[in-house]
C-alpha cells in the first residue's frame, strides 16, 4: 500500500523528526557527560590535594619529632653513660615505651668507631668513618638518610645527631622502623589500587610501594624537580593508568606521592556515564519509534486521500462521459426524427393521393397500399428506437428528490476533512438551520460542491481558511464556498467556466471541473456565480431554485 509514491516522503519525515529530535538529545547527553566529568575530576583533585597535604604534614612532623627526640637523648646523657651498652639498652627501653619509631640505637665516637649498640643487628665494633651518613652528620650535626644498605646489607633509613661534650664529640644514631614508616606514609584512606610512597630526588623509592619496584629502586614516575606546593601527575603502574598528587617534604629532600586508580576514583562517574548513555539511547529509541509511527500514519492518510480522490476523479470523469453520451444520443435521435417524419409524410401523401384514385384503374393498387403500410410500420419501428435513445438521454438528466443541503455540505466536508487537516486549512461551516428542503439531485449537487471545495483547497494552499455557507430567499437556496486564497485575475474571470480552461500546472487539473459543475447546476435550473478579488480570495455560490422546475 505504502509503495505508492510516498515512500520517499516517509523517509524524509522520519529523517527530519530524527534530526530535529536526536541532535538536541545527543547534545544534552554530551553536555551532561562533560559537566559530570569536569565536576568529578575537580572533586578528585581536591580530595587528593587534601590527602597529600595532610600526609606531608604527618611525615614532616614524624621526622622532626624523632630527630628532636634523638637530640634530647644525646644532650641529656653523657658519652660515658651512653658508651655502656647496658645503659644504652635501658635508654632504648625507655624510648621504645613512648615511641615505636626506632628499631635500634647506636653510639659512635668521632673516629667512626661503633662504641655501643642495642638492637637486632650485630654491628658493634665496626668502623663507619667512610660511610656517607657519618660524614654528613659530622658536618651538619643532625641527619636523616635516604634508604641505603650499609654494613647490615639491608635497606634502611637512619637518623643521627652529633653532640660536642667538652672535647669529646660523639654521635647517637637510630634506625627507623621501615615497616612502621611505610604504614605511616601509606595511611589508611587509600582504595584497593591506591598507593602512597616517598621518593628521593632520583625518584628512588624510600618506602614500599604497591608497584613492582622495591625500596631503593626507581619509581615508575616521571622525574619531578623540586617545586613548591601541590601537583597532579599521571603515570602507568603495572599497566594501570594512575593519577597522583605529589608534593615535596619540608624537612627532607623527599617527594610524597599519593596515587589513585582513576577507574576506582571515577567509578561513580562511570555509573553516571552509563546511565546517561542508557537514557539517551532509550530516548533515541522512543523518538525513532514515534517518528516511524507518525510517518506511517501520515502516509496512510495520504494514501487514503489519494485513493478517495482517484475515486472521485473517476466518478466525475464517468459522469462527464455519460453526460456527453446522453447529449450525443439526443442529437442522433433528433437528426433521425426529422427525415423519419419526411418519409412518413411522403408515404402519407401518396396514401392521400391514392384515395382520390379508382383502385380498379390502377393495376398494382393493392401492392402500393401494402408497401405504404410497410413504410409506415417501419417508420414507427425506427421512431421507437429514437425515442428509446431520447429516453436514455433523459435518464442522464437530473433526478428529483428532496435534499437537505446542510446535510449534503456536512457530508462533502467530511470527505475532504483529512486533506484540509493535512494542509492546515480551516474549514468553517455557517449553515442556515432554517434552510428548506430543495427538490434537486443530491449526488450531482454534492459532486459540484466537492469540486468547488477542492478548487478552494488548491487556491488557499496551506494555513488558509474556507467558509461554507448555506442560505435562501423566497426564490432560491444557496451554497457558497469562500476561500482566502489567490483569487482569480480579472482577465480570467470570464473564462473560468469554459471547458479545458485551467490555471493549474499541466498535469494537475483537467479544466473540466468548473465547466462540468456549471453544466450540472444549469441543468437543474440553477446557476453558479463567482466573486473574486485577486490576492484576497474567491467566493463561488451555487444557486438552486426552490420551486421544482417541472
Amino acid at each position, binding site marked *: 500500500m505504502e509503495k505508492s509514491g510516498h515512500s520517499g516522503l516517509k523517509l524524509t519525515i522520519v529523517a527530519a523528526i530524527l534530526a530535529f529530535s536526536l541532535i538536541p538529545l545527543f547534545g544534552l547527553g554530551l553536555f551532561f557527560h562533560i559537566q559530570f566529568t569536569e565536576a568529578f575530576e575537580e572533586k578528585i583533585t581536591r580530595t587528593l590535594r587534601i590527602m597529600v597535604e595532610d600526609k606531608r604534614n604527618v611525615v614532616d612532623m614524624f621526622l622532626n619529632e624523632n630527630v628532636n627526640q634523638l637530640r634530647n637523648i644525646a644532650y641529656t646523657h653523657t658519652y660515658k653513660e651512653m658508651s655502656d651498652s647496658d645503659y644504652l639498652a635501658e635508654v632504648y627501653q625507655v624510648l621504645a615505651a613512648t615511641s615505636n619509631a626506632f628499631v635500634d640505637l647506636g653510639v659512635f665516637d668521632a673516629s667512626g668507631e661503633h662504641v655501643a649498640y642495642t638492637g637486632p643487628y650485630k654491628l658493634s665494633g665496626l668502623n663507619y668513618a667512610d660511610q656517607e651518613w657519618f660524614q654528613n652528620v659530622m658536618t651538619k650535626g643532625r641527619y636523616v638518610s635516604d634508604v641505603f644498605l650499609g654494613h647490615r646489607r639491608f635497606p634502611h633509613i637512619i637518623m643521627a645527631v652529633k653532640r660536642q661534650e667538652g672535647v669529646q664529640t660523639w654521635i647517637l644514631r637510630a634506625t627507623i622502623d621501615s615497616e612502621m614508616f611505610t604504614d605511616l606514609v601509606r595511611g589508611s584512606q587509600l582504595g584497593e589500587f591506591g598507593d602512597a610512597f616517598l621518593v628521593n630526588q632520583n625518584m628512588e623509592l624510600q618506602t614500599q610501594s604497591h608497584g613492582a619496584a622495591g625500596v631503593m629502586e626507581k619509581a615508575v614516575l616521571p622525574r619531578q624537580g623540586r617545586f613548591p606546593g601541590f601537583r597532579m601527575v599521571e603515570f602507568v603502574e603495572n599497566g594501570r593508568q594512575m593519577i597522583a598528587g605529589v608534593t615535596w617534604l619540608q624537612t627532607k629532600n623527599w617527594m610524597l606521592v599519593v596515587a589513585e586508580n582513576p577507574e576506582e576514583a571515577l567509578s561513580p562517574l562511570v555509573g553516571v556515564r552509563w546511565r546517561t548513555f542508557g537514557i539517551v539511547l532509550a530516548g533515541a529509541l522512543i523518538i525513532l519509534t514515534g517518528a516511524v509511527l507518525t510517518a506511517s500514519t501520515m502516509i496512510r492518510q495520504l494514501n487514503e486521500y489519494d485513493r478517495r480522490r482517484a475515486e472521485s476523479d473517476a466518478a466525475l470523469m464517468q459522469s462527464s462521459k455519460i453526460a456527453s453520451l446522453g447529449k450525443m444520443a*439526443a442529437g442522433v*435521435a*433528433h437528426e433521425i*426524427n*426529422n427525415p*423519419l*417524419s*419526411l*418519409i*412518413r*409524410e*411522403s408515404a*402519407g*401523401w401518396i396514401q*392521400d393521393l391514392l384515395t382520390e384514385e379508382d383502385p380498379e384503374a390502377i393495376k398494382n393498387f393493392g401492392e402500393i397500399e401494402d408497401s405504404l403500410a410497410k413504410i409506415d410500420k417501419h*417508420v414507427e419501428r425506427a*421512431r421507437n428506437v*429514437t*425515442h428509446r435513445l*431520447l*429516453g436514455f*438521454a*433523459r435518464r442522464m438528466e437530473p433526478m428529483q428528490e428532496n435534499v437537505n443541503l446542510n446535510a449534503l455540505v456536512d457530508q462533502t466536508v467530511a470527505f475532504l476533512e483529512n486533506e484540509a487537516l493535512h494542509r492546515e486549512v480551516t474549514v468553517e461551516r455557517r449553515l442556515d438551520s432554517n434552510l428548506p428542503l430543495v427538490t434537486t439531485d443530491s449526488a450531482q449537487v454534492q459532486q459540484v460542491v466537492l469540486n468547488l471545495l477542492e478548487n478552494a483547497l488548491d487556491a488557499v494552499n496551506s494555513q488558509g481558511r474556507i467558509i461554507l455557507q448555506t442560505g435562501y430567499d423566497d426564490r432560491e437556496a444557496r451554497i457558497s464556498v469562500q476561500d482566502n486564497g489567490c483569487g482569480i485575475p480579472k482577465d480570467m474571470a470570464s473564462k473560468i467556466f469554459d471547458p479545458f480552461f485551467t490555471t493549474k500546472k499541466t498535469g494537475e487539473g483537467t479544466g473540466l471541473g468548473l465547466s462540468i459543475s456549471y453544466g450540472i447546476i444549469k441543468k437543474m435550473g440553477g446557476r453558479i456565480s463567482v466573486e473574486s478579488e485577486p490576492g484576497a480570495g474567491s467566493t463561488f455560490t451555487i444557486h438552486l431554485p426552490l420551486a421544482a422546475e*417541472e
Partner: protein
Amino acid sequence: MERIRLLLVDDEEEFVNLFVKRFNMRNLDAFGVTSGRAALGYLAEHPVDVVVLDVKMPGMDGLAALGEIKKRFPTVEVIMLTGHGSLKSGVEGMSLGAFDYVLKPFRIDDLLDRIRKAAERKRLMGE
C-alpha cells in the same frame, strides 16, 4: 363549418410542402413558411386560427417565435413540434402559452385532432 386556417412553420421546405398539401386535402386552409420571421410576417397580413411551429429552427427558434406570436397575436393557438423528444422544450412551450406539443415523427391524424381542438378553443375564446 368554417375551414380552419392553419399556418405551418418548419425550416424543412419539403416537409412544409407535403403538409400543406395533405392538410388542404383534409379540408383545412393550410399555408406553410420556413422561418419564424416569415411566420410573423404572414400572421400580420392573414387571419390564422392555429400555428404548427417547429421548435428547432435556425435564426429565430420555435420558442422565440412562440413568444412573439403570443405577444402580437394572442388569440392565435400554437402547437409545438419537436424532434428532440425532450419534454423540456415541449413543456417550456406550454408554459409560454402553446396549446399543445407533438413529438416527431407523428401520425397526421393525431396532429389533425389537436389542430381541431386548438381551433375549437380559439373559437370558444373568441365568443
